[in-house]
């Protein structure tokens, strides 16, 4: 009988909490969107599945050994943990969790040793998170792979499209202001670092968003990553109304001059030029843009095909699997279900919309005052979300004039948007994180 009870208490049914059930439904919803609707499946399938696993009651897959010990609830262990954390031995689990999250490195280590001695271990997803994201390595490796897949040809043929990549980052900074404002109004409660991390959602670049929030606001990483990838998938729905509202039919019909051929050498030199500019001006962006430029140089130099191939395939795929599961670990109910999550989701879409609008408006300005015609529709591609945003520009161009192919023209601002949001990330980290 005793054993039956023990078995029953070890089941999930006996330990389920409503939040966990809700988050498992959220995970299933993400999988549905990814599989049926094709929303960024490469990331949302692992994130969604990781989110479900993180919320399995009693398994503690998303918790560290110390957290698992506190959730375990054995009074003796709790007392020892409290001593290790310098807290009152009679405090509740919740208070201990708070003490743990604010403990210094030394106390944290002591508490972890107590937990391990009592037989508790890091959950699987927590281990993945520590190795892949807390170390910063997974987003950087993915950025290297993205670099190895990026063709800067269209951008080099028309460098002015970099301005569009800059303009679209306005969404990032406007959102920071929004987050700070909401906090000032008492609606939400975000620190400046939180606000900066949330703003990066507007960069429409998954690895950049994850990297910045792992540095500035690890607690918000779950909602930020989910928002970034979801809105990137929603680009074909979010952008067109804004683009149509801000442009006239005549503007959408503007035919752009064909791009010149860019030589191999220019493509080889570009990542080095970009890296050196980063070295001179923005060291805080060096990890992200350095790895990006490294991937791109490997691709363009043509002498390390083996490495390029691996960076584009096996390495980025392996990293994507563990990055996705690690992000999923942040969808654990007691960290994700928070009023701030709603705020992040709302601010994220505002950031996207402002970025799209800024890109289009600056493109209009450049068309008015520039010497060569520039179709404002390609401005929206500056938010990045490669290559979806460029395809949206192309589609709206074809709607206005069935012979007006904008795809290659939009690829310039599109990859400029990747560079732009990595630059914005560096600025954020150097202004806020220092």
């Amino acid at each position, binding site marked *: 009988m005793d054993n039956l009870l023990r078995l029953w208490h070890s089941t999930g049914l006996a330990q389920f909490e409503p939040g966990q059930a809700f988050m498992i439904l959220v995970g299933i919803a993400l999988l549905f969107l990814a599989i049926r609707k094709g929303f960024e499946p490469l990331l949302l399938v692992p994130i969604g599945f990781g989110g479900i696993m993180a919320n399995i009651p009693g398994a503690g897959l998303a918790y560290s050994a110390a957290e698992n010990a506190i959730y375990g609830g054995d009074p003796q262990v709790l007392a020892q943990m409290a001593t290790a954390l310098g807290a009152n031995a009679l405090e509740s689990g919740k208070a201990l969790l708070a003490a743990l999250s604010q403990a210094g490195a030394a106390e944290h280590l002591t508490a972890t040793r107590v937990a391990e001695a009592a037989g508790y271990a890091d959950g699987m997803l927590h281990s993945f998170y520590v190795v892949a994201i807390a170390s910063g390595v997974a987003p950087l490796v993915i950025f290297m792979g993205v670099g190895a897949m990026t063709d800067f040809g269209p951008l080099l043929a028309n460098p002015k499209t*970099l301005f569009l990549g800059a303009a679209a980052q306005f969404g990032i900074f406007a959102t920071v202001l929004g987050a700070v404002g909401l906090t000032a109004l008492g609606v939400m409660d975000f620190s400046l670092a939180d606000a900066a991390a949330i703003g990066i959602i507007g960069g429409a670049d998954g690895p950049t968003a994850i990297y910045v929030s792992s540095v500035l606001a690890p607690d918000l990483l779950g909602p930020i990553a989910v928002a970034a990838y979801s809105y990137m998938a929603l680009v074909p729905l979010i952008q067109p109304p804004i683009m149509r509202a801000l442009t006239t039919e005549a503007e959408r019909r503007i035919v752009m001059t064909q791009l010149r051929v860019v030589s191999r050498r220019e493509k080889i030199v570009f990542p080095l030029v970009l890296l050196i500019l980063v070295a001179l001006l923005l060291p805080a962006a060096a990890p992200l843009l350095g790895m990006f430029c490294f991937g791109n140089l490997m691709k363009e130099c043509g002498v390390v095909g083996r490495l390029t191939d691996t960076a584009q395939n096996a390495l980025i795929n392996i990293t994507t699997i563990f990055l996705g599961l690690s992000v999923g670990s942040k969808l654990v109910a007691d960290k994700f279900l928070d009023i701030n999550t709603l705020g992040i989701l709302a601010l994220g879409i505002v950031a996207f919309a402002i970025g799209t609008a800024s890109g289009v408006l600056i493109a209009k300005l450049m068309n008015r005052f520039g010497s060569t015609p520039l179709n404002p529709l390609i401005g929206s591609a500056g938010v990045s979300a490669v290559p979806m945003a460029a395809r949206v520009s192309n589609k709206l161009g074809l709607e206005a004039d069935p012979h007006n192919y904008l795809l290659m023209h939009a690829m310039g601002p599109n990859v400029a948007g990747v*560079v732009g949001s990595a630059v914005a990330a560096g600025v954020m980290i150097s*202004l806020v994180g220092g």
Partner: protein
Amino acid sequence: MQGVELMVFGIGSVAVFLSLLVVVTSLTSRLMTRYFPEAEPLPVMPRAQRPAPVAGAEDAQLTAVIAAAIHRHRAGKH
């Protein structure tokens, strides 16, 4: 540093950086097309970089696969 300042300095830095990149990239492109036109061919990765000892085996296998595929293709199954 508060929100407004962060926004001003942030978007300003991004704009300055990317503007500089426009200038430098345009200059580099012009310099390269003028002084280093693509005359000498770049060394292309030699096939030998792939593991030489297995290359033969792979080729043979590939040829076999292709031969089989062609056969099936001709047999009209597809």
